């Protein structure tokens, strides 16, 4: 498999933006036919480096050598011509076209102005057999799940003849089963002679899947290691350059007061199906209840129902004994409920607005931010600065628009906003999705501290390590139902995986 020939070599790469050195003295050697992981904190310069390699911008200094030939990439098409393809983190597919149409888009084989669909199909079938992937070429992309969309993106790159694939955080959107599938596909590709550069935050994955690992910190390459030489902790420390706090253990006890209670909640879904079917649970003060499950099994509807954005068909919801089933979302949010939503860009932030308006969103009913009918901007800004300080949001000021922050810092701001209203119940959906280990540890710390102070947390996460590490009890959701109750001690990723895909729990306790 791994040979000594070098697919990509970057030497002394330096990339400057006005007033900032994003990459300097970056050296990277990727052997042909290997999976090479690039790890680093958000903002460490991984993406800048990959954009340089893919021709999206030009470096100020340094050389790029591909298969022994020195190259200058003026644009991505130069990089594609040299056999480099990139699979972006956010998919770029046209929903209303079929898989086949999406793949050939912009690269259509034509004869006399007519698109040769037959030819494209034959070539794709061949690529799919070789790489061991399968996607229905005639299905509209809108029908596909996330994992399948990603396969389409990979096929798109292969169709353009790429021999070197750059994958930008490919597993961020996948569930464990899909991750396994992706990795087996990647191995098939590598066996077939392809070279893969793989950017990730998830160190466990990096350690299992890659042949070589390069660590980037503060814009430069600081270490090149082999997975067998390092532990997860060591790798994380190389990334942040210091020792990390441990994620486990709790000092306080779960209280007796029931903060949130769901009683036989049923919610309508598409068609005759119920999105939530007879869901009941309670969360006590100082307790974290984890919900594990493959995305799309009712977690989203569960959160929206608790917030009050979806009205249940039947069942009751109570907070600290008060029936809130028929109250408005605004009422609930003003009375001790907080929500860290699934997707910070879609549901959480006003990207164009300054940070202080973002920390004010949803809290504008609080009298401390008002002067009569007007917003007290001074107080709102001061509060925003406090959130920024307490949650270590890295930003020059509260006046910067939210889009200017990295994902991890946006998430810290969001978590900070939701915790600083001193909620008694917090719904945390993927609180650390797509953030680097440093920010993840910080967010966990804050959640733990709030829990110790009596907060009841409903934790929904695709990161099983997070669910097991933070929760006091774990429920598994499948197809709108709760189909397993576990303690973190008995939960293993494998066991959770079984229940998450519909395995039935033996009734024990």
């Amino acid at each position, binding site marked *: 498999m791994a040979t000594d020939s070098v697919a990509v070599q970057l030497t002394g790469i330096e990339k400057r933006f*006005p007033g*900032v*050195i994003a990459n300097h003295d970056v050296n990277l050697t990727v052997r042909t036919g290997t999976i090479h992981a690039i790890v680093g904190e958000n903002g460490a310069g991984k993406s800048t480096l990959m954009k340089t390699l893919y021709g999206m911008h030009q470096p100020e200094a340094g050389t790029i050598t591909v298969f022994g030939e020195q190259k200058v990439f003026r644009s991505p098409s130069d990089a594609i011509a040299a056999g480099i393809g990139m699979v972006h983190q956010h998919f770029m597919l046209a929903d209303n076209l079929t898989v086949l149409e999406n793949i050939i888009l912009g690269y259509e084989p034509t004869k006399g102005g007519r698109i040769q669909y037959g030819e494209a199909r034959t070539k794709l079938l061949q690529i799919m057999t070789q790489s061991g992937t399968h996607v229905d070429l005639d299905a509209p992309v809108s029908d596909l799940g996330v994992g399948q969309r990603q396969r389409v993106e990979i096929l798109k790159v292969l169709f353009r003849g790429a021999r070197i694939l750059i994958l930008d955080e490919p597993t961020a959107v996948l569930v464990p089963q899909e991750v396994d599938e992706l990795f087996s596909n990647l191995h098939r590709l590598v066996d077939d002679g392809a070279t893969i550069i793989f950017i990730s935050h998830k160190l466990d994955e990096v350690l299992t899947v890659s042949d070589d690992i390069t660590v980037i910190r*503060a814009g430069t390459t600081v270490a090149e290691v082999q997975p067998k030489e390092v532990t997860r902790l060591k790798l994380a420390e190389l990334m942040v350059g210091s020792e990390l706090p441990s994620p486990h253990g709790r000092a306080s006890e779960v209280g007796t007061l029931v903060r949130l209670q769901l009683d036989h909640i049923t919610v309508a879904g598409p068609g005759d199906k119920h999105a939530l079917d007879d869901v009941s649970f309670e969360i006590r003060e100082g307790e974290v209840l984890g919900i594990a499950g493959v995305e799309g099994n009712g977690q989203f509807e569960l959160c929206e129902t608790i917030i009050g954005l979806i009205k249940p068909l039947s069942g009751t919801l109570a907070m600290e004994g008060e029936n809130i089933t028929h109250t408005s979302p*605004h009422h609930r949010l003003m009375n001790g409920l907080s929500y860290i939503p699934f997707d910070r860009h879609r549901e959480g932030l006003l990207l164009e607005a*300054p940070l202080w308006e973002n920390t004010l969103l949803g809290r504008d009913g609080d009298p401390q931010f008002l002067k009569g009918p*007007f*917003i007290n901007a001074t107080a709102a800004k001061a509060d925003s600065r406090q959130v920024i300080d307490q949650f270590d949001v890295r930003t020059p000021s509260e006046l910067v*628009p939210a889009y200017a922050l990295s994902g991890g810092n946006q998430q810290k701001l969001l978590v900070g906003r939701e915790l600083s209203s001193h909620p008694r119940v917090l719904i945390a959906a993927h609180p650390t999705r797509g953030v680097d280990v440093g920010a993840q540890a910080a967010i966990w710390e804050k959640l733990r501290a709030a829990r110790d102070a009596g907060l009841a947390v409903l934790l929904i996460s695709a990161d099983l390590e997070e669910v097991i590490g933070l929760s006091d009890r774990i429920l598994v959701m499948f197809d709108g139902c709760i189909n397993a109750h576990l303690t973190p001690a008995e939960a293993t990723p494998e066991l959770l995986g079984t229940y998450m895909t519909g395995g039935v729990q033996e009734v024990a306790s």
Partner: protein
Amino acid sequence: MSESINESVDTAVSKLQRLFKGSGQQSVLITLASSLAAVAIALVLAGILLWATGKSPFDAYSKMLEAGLTNDKLLETVQRATPLIVAAVAVAIGFKMNLFNIGVEGQYLMGVFWAAVVGAYVHLPSVLHIGLIFLVAMAAGAIWAAIPAILKVKKGVNEVIATIMLNTITLSIIDWLFQEKFRHEIPGQLDVKTKLLPTTAWLPDLVKNRLSSFVFMALVVVIVFWLIVYKSKFGFRLRASGANAIAARTAGISSNNMIVTSMVMSGAIAGLAGMTYLLSTSHAYGPTRPEGYGFNGIAVALLGRNHPAGIIVAGLLWGFLDSVAGPLQIAKIPQSIVLVIKAVILLTVVIVNEVVGRRVAKRTADRTAAQLTLPVVAA
């Protein structure tokens, strides 16, 4: 000594920067510069067009300045700008909620018509009379704007289509009502109008027949707009809902409520756009009714970037261009060049804003990254 001077210069500079930094997104200076550049580009393009049709652009422009910079014409500029500014504020309220209210045209006509009808049949002391007329105009505009809002909320009808269709419907309804119900014939007069308003409802002119005191009301409208949209809690929710409806919904802000409220507010303001005509010029509704305030208001709102100060400046520019159309005609330069200039300004402003906006966004992101990365790199 020199150090302390340096320090005070630094703080002064940062204070100035903050002053011009508005919401922290794009400085007022950049916005101003890009808008001025757009106007300059538009003048050059229109000049090329003039030159291509065999007229001298320099002649045309100097004629415009010569005619436009007289006292009379400057008053006319303000007089013409007044309704456009009011209409633009109405449009801008919609834009802030991500709604495109093309129906301002129909809404102010409804306002003028019903205010003329109701105002003619009441007798009140002047202040109350005028106040009542304002209220009727606002209510008529608001009710008319509520229709597309309710259609959007209940049935998902796009407000652009609904308001365009309502504009056409407005004209037919008003024409019918006027001809059949409210035509007031005075023997011996050819000028047919609705019943004349009692003089208690006449707004005094600041300069006789040149400038109506309604200009003060327009200023009040702009200030109230600024206070409500940019400073109030309601405005914050409106802007949040317009910027990201899903995030606003998640934060407990009902976007349906916001759609209806903002459309109704927009319609109410729109209802006031025709008040110069009704209360200062014509004192009744008639076939000489104004037209185009709504469409020009959209242009003024776009040019002014939905910002109160921008709207005033853009409204005055539009008023100026309208006021010089006549003198150009006399100088044998086709007055349609004014239309061309307006259209080209609008296009260049949209394009220049887009380009500048992207660059500013990228620079802001890079600068933010820079302020954070530099110390780390140095360490």
